[in-house]
């Protein structure tokens, strides 16, 4: 019982279909507070859908999502709306609002929290400093480099002070050096702020740079789940073996 309470996220028996095709079928996933989990899976295996269900952007046909001990989604019913779940997400295309400056992007992102103007300003200042982009506050997204845009998306997500950060392949388009730099910053922020991470990725550099555990989604359910070193030592699934082989070759 105690174990259930300390878990930050529990997904149970999720069923989600696109048309007639089941994408998730009995998927179950637990994430501990402060954990950093890499979620692997083939293209179209439902990784992003699982993240969207956790965030409350999609509803499953069946199953439950429990966040911090509270049932957030039960079957097709959304019991806690996305912005009250303590969850933030960085999207694959970053989803920065192009007509707003960096500071305005973060400010609009905070508008659901009903903070005073002063509190808003303080949070924006803090998060810009934390993400080392305080000099970009007045710039618009299109005038920033890929790495800078990643940091802005991250800053907007962290300004919400989430307990769980969902990352949907946000580093895919970056070169290796920028990717390593952003990963280093993410790892530092995670240690400073203590949030948990679920990272959807195909990239072993990202897994090694950020994650301490790993799960594999295959055939609509989680087929492998464990600490990173355990999975590397003894991969069970086909994808897990292929991933470990790639990692060891590096």
């Amino acid at each position, binding site marked *: 019982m105690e174990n259930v309470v300390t878990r930050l996220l529990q997904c149970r028996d999720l069923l989600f279909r696109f048309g007639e095709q089941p994408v998730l079928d009995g998927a179950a996933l637990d994430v501990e507070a402060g954990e950093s989990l890499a979620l692997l899976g083939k293209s179209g295996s439902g990784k992003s859908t699982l993240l969207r269900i956790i965030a409350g952007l999609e509803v499953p046909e069946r199953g439950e999502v429990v966040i911090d001990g509270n049932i957030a989604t039960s079957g097709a019913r*959304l019991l806690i709306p*996305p912005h009250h779940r303590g*969850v933030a997400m960085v999207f*694959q295309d970053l*989803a920065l609002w192009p007509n707003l400056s960096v500071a305005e992007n973060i400010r609009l992102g905070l*508008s659901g*929290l009903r903070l005073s103007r002063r509190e808003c300003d303080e949070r924006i200042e803090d998060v810009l400093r934390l993400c080392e982009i305080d000099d970009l506050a*007045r710039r*618009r997204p299109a005038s920033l480099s890929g790495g800078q845009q990643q940091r802005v998306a991250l800053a907007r997500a962290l300004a919400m002070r989430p307990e769980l950060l969902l990352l949907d392949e946000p580093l895919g388009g970056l070169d290796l050096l920028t990717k390593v730099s952003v990963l280093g910053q993410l790892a530092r922020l995670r240690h400073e702020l203590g949030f948990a991470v679920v990272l959807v990725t195909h990239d072993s550099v990202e897994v090694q740079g950020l994650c301490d555990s790993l799960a594999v989604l295959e055939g609509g359910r989680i087929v492998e789940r464990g600490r990173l070193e355990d999975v590397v030592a003894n991969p069970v699934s086909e994808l897990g073996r292929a991933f470990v082989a790639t990692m060891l070759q590096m």
Partner: protein
Amino acid sequence: MDFAARTTAARRRGLIAAAILALAIAPAIPLLIAALRGSSDYSLWSDVFIKALLASLSLATGVAVVSLGLGLPLGLLAALYGPRRRPILLVAQALPLLLPSFLLAIGWRHLPAVGLPKGLFPPSGFGGAALVMGLQAAPLPLLATWAACRNLTASQIDAARLHGGERIVLTRAAMACAPVAIVAALLAGILSLSDPGAAQVFRCPSAAMEIRTSFAALGDRVLAARQCLVMAGLALLLTAPVLLVGLPHLAAAVLARQTRPVVPYRHRLLGGAGQAGLVALLLVAVGLPALGLCLPAIERPMFARAAKTVLDTAPATLAYTLGAAAVAVSLATVLALLTMHSLRLRLAVLAALMVLLALPPALGAIGVVHAATVAPPWLDWLTRSRLTVAVVLGLRLLPVAAVAMMRAVGSLSPSWSDAASLCGVPKRRFLYRVTIPVLMPTILIGLLLVAVLAAADVTTTQLLYPPGRASLPLAVLTIMANSPEGLVASLSLLYLLGVVLLMLVATMLSAWLLRKWKTS
């Protein structure tokens, strides 16, 4: 939002979209009632009307053929080999579409004064009308082909290039874009059925002119209503199969968003041919008639009198055009936002919009005239005022604005609103802070397009304008027969310059907005 709530919201969006489309067709309902219940002194199927109907059909075919023959190849060349930046030449191709056909026809009629061969000029009768209207309509398949070609991925084109060079690229691209170009050309032909302008100037009989004669000269509104319904039926009959076959292609070309579109390839010969073709089309479609308008205006300048007419008609012209633009663009924005979540709804709305566009403009206008005759006097502000003209024009041009807005809304990333709901940004706030500002360049272009097209739609204005409140194009059309050539030419020239100026301002303003986001 859970599953049941989403289903309810989707139904609600569908219902509101249907209500807006119903509103667009509402002005025609009194006409339907009048045509069915009223009695007329004349036979509907008179020889004159049947001949005019056949002539209109032939004219529509001619317009479709001419516009397709010019639009498809030039659209392909522009998309595949056009200039990568500053596509001002492509934007300028829209100019003929924004001008009333009678204005271009007047210009053509004046061309012999320049000393061009007499056998060819002035164009007259059926040939003249088909040439002028075909040239005017050519940008429709041209721009549709360009949009369809831009929806091919860059890698598809690169693969074709690697396999067999430019010949294969052109063949494959032509095969991919032809359905869209054909649909656009057929729509251009169908639209020409309702345009009496050029046909009137070249003295070519047309059904649209017959409707106007029945309404204005014979004063038989029931006959005009019935003729109008016959035209609407014909337009529907022709549009239905076109949409049935071509709607998915048209939707893909008009509404789809290609994340890695074709980048024009540097090819000296084909690039040069494309540019030369676009310049030539613009020169022939607009330049020559403009020259025809200039000469009498220079030889017998009457700009002072023309300027007075412009000033006299300016309040009415502005009220009609700006009112129509506001009505059309605001309804179009709502329609586009309602349909953004559902592909099926988007297709259904697009089909309905194409049908609405193909209907004769007189349909709504005569309907409102009928309603005005039976409505109580306290409703005059709604049925016999400048507002009436603006609203009917706005509803008539809703399809143009809606297609532009639907395309713009299609380019919004779905993850923007996902990010907003995850952050708990109130929907209304997100709409005002992000959605509307991002759509602003298209809203500006849409306002300009509708305003200019509303000015060019003399049929609706002529049937509905309150006494003494004629718009500028209507004033030109009215004085055309019995005023000095110099005055008609001076007025036409001023109108042409105004349209060009408006186009430039709107293009520069929207380009400035986009640049501001990218560079600041």
